[in-house]
């Protein structure tokens, strides 16, 4: 059971890592002007909800298997993801809005956020890996 939970988390985590890398690549494409804001944002917005679900899944898995430490580690990220989606203004086209992304350093903050998430997921990845091996 334990092993199954961790292996599932591991897979989930891999997916999240890929997603974070994808976000970073797409954002840096935008930064370098390889793609335009519209295309970039519609690409990214498509993956905002899957990311949220993936993160929530990992969090819930940890909760049901009563791994409190890992759960608490995951909880803030999951909460942040939901908050982000929830606070999108009605007139915006999603978390990533092509008309705003170049304003107020949003591009940079999105980039930073993705980087931090990548780091976090890598950390989780090793925790899950270690745990599943230990089990």
């Amino acid at each position, binding site marked *: 059971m334990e092993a199954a939970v961790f292996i599932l988390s591991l897979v989930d985590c891999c997916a999240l890592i890929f997603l974070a890398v994808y976000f970073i690549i797409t954002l840096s494409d935008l930064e370098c*002007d390889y793609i*335009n804001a519209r295309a970039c944002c519609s690409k990214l917005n498509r993956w905002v909800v899957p990311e949220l679900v993936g993160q929530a899944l990992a969090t819930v898995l940890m909760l049901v298997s009563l791994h409190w430490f890992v759960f608490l580690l995951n909880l803030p990220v999951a909460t942040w993801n939901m908050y982000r989606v929830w606070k999108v*203004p*009605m*007139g915006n086209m999603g978390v990533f809005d092509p*008309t705003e992304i170049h304003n107020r*350093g949003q591009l940079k903050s999105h980039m930073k956020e993705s980087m931090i998430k990548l780091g976090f997921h890598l950390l989780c990845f090793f925790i899950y890996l270690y745990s599943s091996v230990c089990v």
Partner: protein
Amino acid sequence: MSNTDFSSQNGAGGPPYANGPSQNPVALQPPGPGYMAHQTPYNPMQAKGPMPPGPGLYNSGPYQPIPPVSSNQALPGQPMLKRPPMGPQHSMTPPQSASPNPGSRIPPAHATPPPVSANNYQHAPAWQYGGTPPMGAPPSMGAPPPMAMPPLRPVGNHMTSSPSLATPQASSAEYRATPPVFHNAMQPLGPPTSLQGYTQQGSAPLLMNPMAAPHSYQPVMRAPYGGPPPSVRPTPPTTGPPMGNASPPLGPKTDAGPLPPQQPGPPTRHMGLSYPSLPPGYQNTSAPPNAATMQHPVQPSTQPYSHPPPYQQLSAGPAQLSPSLSGLSLQSQTPEALRVVNLLQERNLLPLGPVTPPTPCLPQDLQKINCHPEVFRSTLTSIPQTQSLLNKAKLPLGLLLHPFKDLSQLPVVTSSTIVRCRSCRTYINPFVTFLDQRRWKCNLCYRVNDVPEEFMYNPVSRSYGEPHKRPEVQNATLEFIAPSEYMLRPPQPAVYLIVLDVSHNAVETGYLDVVCQSLLENINALPGDSRTKIGFITFDSTIHFYNLQEGLSQPQMLIVSDIEDIFLPTPDSLLVNLNECKELVQDLLRSLPQMFGKTMETQCALGPALQAAFKLLSATGGRVSVFQTQLPSLGVGALKSREDPNQRASAKDIQHLSPATDFYKKLALDCSGQQVAVDLFLLSSQYCDLASLGCISRYSAGSVYYYPSYHQQHNPAGVECFQKDLKRYLTRKIGFEAVMRIRCSKGLSIHTFHGNFFVRSTDLLSLPNVNPDAGFAVQMSIEENLVDMQSVSFQAALLYTSSKGERRIRVHTMCLPVVNSLSDIFAGADVQAITCLLASMAVDRSVTASLSDARDAMTNASIDSLTSFRTSVLTIQQPGLLAPACLRLFPLYILALLKQKAFRTGTSTRLDDRVFAMCQLKYQPLAYVMLMIHPALYRVDDLTDEGALNVSERTIPQPRVQQLSVEKLSRDGAFLMDAGSVIYLWIGRNCNPNFLTQVLGLPNYAAVPLNMNMLPELDTAESQRTRAFVGWLREQRPFFPILHVIRDESPLKASFLQNMIEDRTESALSYYEFLLHIQQQVSK
């Protein structure tokens, strides 16, 4: 000197290049020769020709010499030829004297100056930033004229094509006329000014001020001018106080003797004595000459079209600058910007004329070719070296642009290769450095590029080997005719689509008559060529298309009632060639108002109509003009009323400033992708949710017009306004499928954009349409330290298709010095630009956060910057609220913003009015925004011709601007308030009966009607003066301000009084209270 040169560029260059892209003769000519032919007058050499007397005079003025010579052009042969604006003077001058063939390029007259400048500049290293004040001074004197120049000719520039119609001869004649004027004016001016600058500085050393330290060069420079005239005395106080300590006591005493009455004023001020009794010298009306000098350094650019006055003043000023007065001019020099003003004690802060932008402290030769501040303006005319320095100053750094402004003089260059930097793609501009004849160094990325062969030939002088004299390198603003590399597809024709709301509500307002009538009248004036296309769509609950195909006997209406899935009934014949089908179009326009006269349909499907418009235009791109009178209620994009009128005044925070749906934004982005722009005319009496509807224009680079309570019978003033605006709208210049890129020197980057457009990539704005009335703003951040740079440059390049189907690039380049001390940053602060940028930022903030947040942010901006000034720049702490003179209006403007329709709280403001005000703050160019923020109040019952302007044979009186306080209103006067989009004429109860009869044509006060929007055309001098003045105010802007005559009982009195910014209202602080609040925060 600078003037002449400038005039040469502007004036002489102008005629051939008059800006109407379409009619421009030059454009049609073959690149090389045609260009030359026209340009002959433009030749810089010629322009300089008249200057000979200059050199002699220049001896006294170290700065004057530089301009002509130091410009890089002189140095083509010099490998060393560096042209950094600030420091490199030494390098420039030596080359000249040593230059192998100076004679060939430089008239002897000019050759002389260099040595002089060389001496002065030797010390440049020390100067760096410190040098700025002295440098600044001369430019400040010299610069205004250049700025003033353009205004001299702007006459016709509102009409799209009219400017270009000016015949070459006419303008060249004009040009020729101008130089002499300038000479007279300027030359006397130059020497005294610089003299003073120096004397002033000379005294400075005594004071141990922070400023002085950096200026180690100062003593040296001053030496030549050693014998300070009597005027010297006054200066110390001026310089002293801001920085100083020891001197002030000395100052006042010494001054008192030799100086004119006002002079003592400043010193005392600094000493913290009571000023109220001693208004600052420059405000003192008692000394007109002084006033004149004072004014113009700051004046020229605030009011885009108003230049003539500053210019005239300028010419007057110098003449009056006799030695005895020379002392006064000190105040106009850069240190003046830092003179400490105690806001709590100084009541009368408004300058006599318009507020003028500071002049960047660049060497005069660079400054005189710098971009005109109306077109390109920076909040800080001295760029801080590092972001941390900028953060310390607490002032926003940003640019305000008006790139497609109607210009009366615009050089147009036709050439098969457009010279650009190979790495950053910057267009070659006056601020690049020529390393030698064959290589130039980009001023933005510092890459060294080759000069192409073709560029070696100078069509102006028809000579070879003078790349630095090409017009590209002589003009900071110019236009290229783009070759085919700049086209992704063949240039599109001008395409106009009119989308009209014909629901019951719309027909009721009677706007259809006005629109159709205006179109009929202006159908031949629509910008375009033989390919111009036009189409019409009307909508209520269904969408109606009009088949106007040639051969039909009358227009055919096609109704599409399936609004869920809109389609085009006959895709080919809905958009027709205007010339071929003009008859049918006119038929349609004549019958349209009647067609829907009896309609009972109240629903309105705006969303589907816009989708249809987008489909219709997506193949070509073009302009959609949407006329809408109510909340869209059907189909996609339907909106619900979100406003609760009862909450308007009481609500803690204003809700619903952001769009309710993303439909309009998405559609706007689709439009933007297909080069379609949507202009929105909102004529409504109830809530229309402009916050949502506005998105359609905002992201497709359209414009928004809003006429609240529009009704044909009930609101005749609104109708007139709509008519006039529509005329301007239909006939103004237009650019299609445009993009604008804003480049800046390495190390700087753009942080945020404000205006109507879609930001396609980090520095590229997509503008499906660009119109001459659109302004833009950007916020900048400093990403890398600018340590080794003396100056930075900004370049805005606008690539567009003219209505004649030509691809053109309009390039503006601005160069600004880099400084490393807070005091220099403050000295270069441009209070109007800062206010406008803050307003744009506050609009963003109120949409993303909340209105109260935005209000706090604005208040804090003024508190923070004044705190920073107090703690970091002032060395002596005095009581009171101290501000540098250049920012003395800052708290007032912030208070005005807080009371502006967009941001005010506590008073009942309709949500649409508020949102529209916000749109305008972001979209209007600076000059109009300033009037909307801080209206101008004039007393008009005693207009005289004294100091009047002469514009095209009309005499326009120039009354003084009054403070916006009821205290200034007197019952026996009449006052005119110019609030940008509306003008109020307030009649006092005991108003001079003469004024009533002679101007208003009314027997007495009681006869003043409650609704009066016109001044009768009476044949009296008073009436003529008043009408000339009002007419002149109106001419200066592209929209039509309504005139309301107001008396005590008028319903509009409340809105008039709301503009009395300095007074207290139930919900807002008075100016004095606001200052006390700031002071409290500052001294914490």
